[in-house]
């Protein structure tokens, strides 16, 4: 198993290098002088010259990439010209809110969508199945911010059950933290539930057609055990895969959701950085999010060994 983990880790390196090259080129394919863009609209000529020196922008492109990549590998994402602090510090300040939101969303989404998918597959073609498939298409189609504003309007403004916007850190108490996360997490989980439920249904449906299910039923196993221990267990690999792939949707959703609920997290930071044309921060955030995405999918790949003992590497 260890050689497999090592090989899988090595395989992510080329992907990360390509991501780094793409993020690096993003600024270089922009019309205009990268030093002037990085310095921002209000910079003096000396400041621009200073940036040109430190980033080696007078050097050939591969050398520039080398300098930049070396900084990134050392965990230095540069300095935000808008906030005037290190980008790593900006990310550290805002990661708690985003991480809380993402974690609650994933937990909520998996706990809801997997049982729904199993039931739909079990009652294939029935009203529940059709309802879930309908919801799933709807979940893919309704924009995240519409769900968000609908919930704010209904639950917070009309019913007054929950606070409208904002975020409370977890050290301010568990209850306020949960109160502020309920609506954003529901908002964000709609598309995720649609995705996971669909894949769960399809893979459980496939498993239910196998011979071992008939055997399990024939030997008199209760239906719940057949569904969970035999059908769901054998459908675990595609479900884990889609949870990993869905992280990309989740990151996109975080950007929108944090904007709707005024949560001071990484998603809000991304939008603010784009509006301020704060390029070091944009670059740093894209790299950071991509690293998380690649990392989660690496973990998902490694989890196959646990879920499916047949897989040997």
């Amino acid at each position, binding site marked *: 198993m260890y050689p497999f983990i090592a090989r899988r880790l090595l395989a992510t390196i*080329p*992907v*990360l290098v*390509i*991501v780094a*090259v*793409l*993020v690096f080129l*993003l*600024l270089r*394919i*922009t*019309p205009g002088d990268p030093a002037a863009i990085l310095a921002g609209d209000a910079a003096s000529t000396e400041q621009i010259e200073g940036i040109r020196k430190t980033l080696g922008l007078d050097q050939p492109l591969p050398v520039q990439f080398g300098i930049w990549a070396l900084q990134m590998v050392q965990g230095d994402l540069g300095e935000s010209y808008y906030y005037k602090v290190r980008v790593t510090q900006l990310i550290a300040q805002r990661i708690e809110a985003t991480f809380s939101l993402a974690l609650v969303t994933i937990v909520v989404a998996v706990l809801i969508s997997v049982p729904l998918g199993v039931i739909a597959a079990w009652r294939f073609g029935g009203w529940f199945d059709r309802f879930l498939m309908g919801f799933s*298409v*709807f979940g*893919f*189609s*309704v*924009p*995240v*911010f*519409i769900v968000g*504003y*609908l919930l*704010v*309007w209904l639950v917070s*403004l009309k019913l007054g059950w929950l606070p409208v916007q904002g975020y409370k850190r977890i050290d301010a108490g568990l209850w306020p933290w949960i109160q502020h996360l309920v609506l954003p997490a529901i908002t964000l989980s709609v598309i995720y539930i649609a995705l996971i439920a*669909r*894949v769960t249904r*399809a893979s459980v449906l496939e498993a239910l057609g196998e011979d071992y299910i008939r055997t399990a039923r024939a030997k008199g196993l209760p239906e719940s055990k057949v569904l969970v221990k035999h059908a769901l267990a054998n459908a675990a690999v595609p479900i884990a895969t889609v949870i990993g792939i869905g992280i*990309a*949707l989740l*990151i*996109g959703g975080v*950007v*929108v959701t944090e*904007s709707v609920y005024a949560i001071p997290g990484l998603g809000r930071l*991304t*939008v603010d950085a*784009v*509006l301020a*044309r704060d*390029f070091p921060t*944009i670059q740093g*955030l*894209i790299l950071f*999010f*991509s690293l998380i*995405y*690649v990392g989660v999918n690496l973990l998902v790949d490694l989890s196959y060994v646990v879920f499916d003992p047949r897989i040997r590497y």
Partner: protein
Amino acid sequence: MAATDADRYAALSVESADVRPQETAWQRVRRNLSVRIGGVVLVLLLAVAALAPWLGTVDPTMFDAGSRDLPPGAKGEMLTLDGEVIKHRFHFGSDSLGRDIYSRVIYGTRVSLFVGVVAALVSLLLGVFCGLTAGYLRWLDGILMRVMDGIMAIPAILIAIALVAMWRASLVTVIIAIAIPEIPRVARLVRSLVLTIREEPYVEAATSLGTPTWKIMLGHILPNTIAPLVVMGTFIAASAILIEAILSFLGVGLPPDIPTWGNIMAEGRIAFVQFPHNIFIPGIFLTITVLAVNILGDGLRDTLDPKMAKRI
């Protein structure tokens, strides 16, 4: 006189009316309920987009200081650029600048549909090019697909936001920024199809006859990828419409003077507590449009490319 094939099939299908062996793919598509529902809604939306000036709208960019923040259904007046005062009924109310939201929503249909269709076409075109190249020119395969993996490792909205930020938003840059993150999925699909199709006997036959590579690619392989590509293009159009609205909503998309659903909603955020309809009305249009495109895509997938249902 020998009976024609169609007669024989007709005789066979007496017992099982649902089996229609001579049915072409196009007929199967037209019979599909999802295709019909999605298609009808989209035709209606296309009609709205085309007929926008004749649907009781005023210039969607025109604002009237005297008719700000009106509730839906309010009657009022608007001062046109010619200095004329016209009576106008604000079906969906007006925004904080005194622009007619009904007119903006109706004209917004044009932008959304245009962005959806063009972004889908752009990403299909570039994706097909990359996929065919990777599938047929093996020496380019490795590097090209690694680049695609790299693009896929960055969440789509982030790529779109970053590109728009770099280029400053306009219709062209927004469409390209939305299309680029979709290219890898098209390229992967085309590549995998090419790798299967190139092993088919008829490709082997063409190769043995000395047909040049580009002729095999365009004449034998590309036609076989059309059905799955139509399906994928539909789904890309749906997500392109969504992403365009998200970009505008976040304030990084098309310039605010262009009436798009996202821009109307972005404007409506300021006064959301008093006037929630500024967000909900364009939101309903947006949801119905994306839903219609997705339902159409589901129907096309089931009829044109049943294998893809398993692939997803």
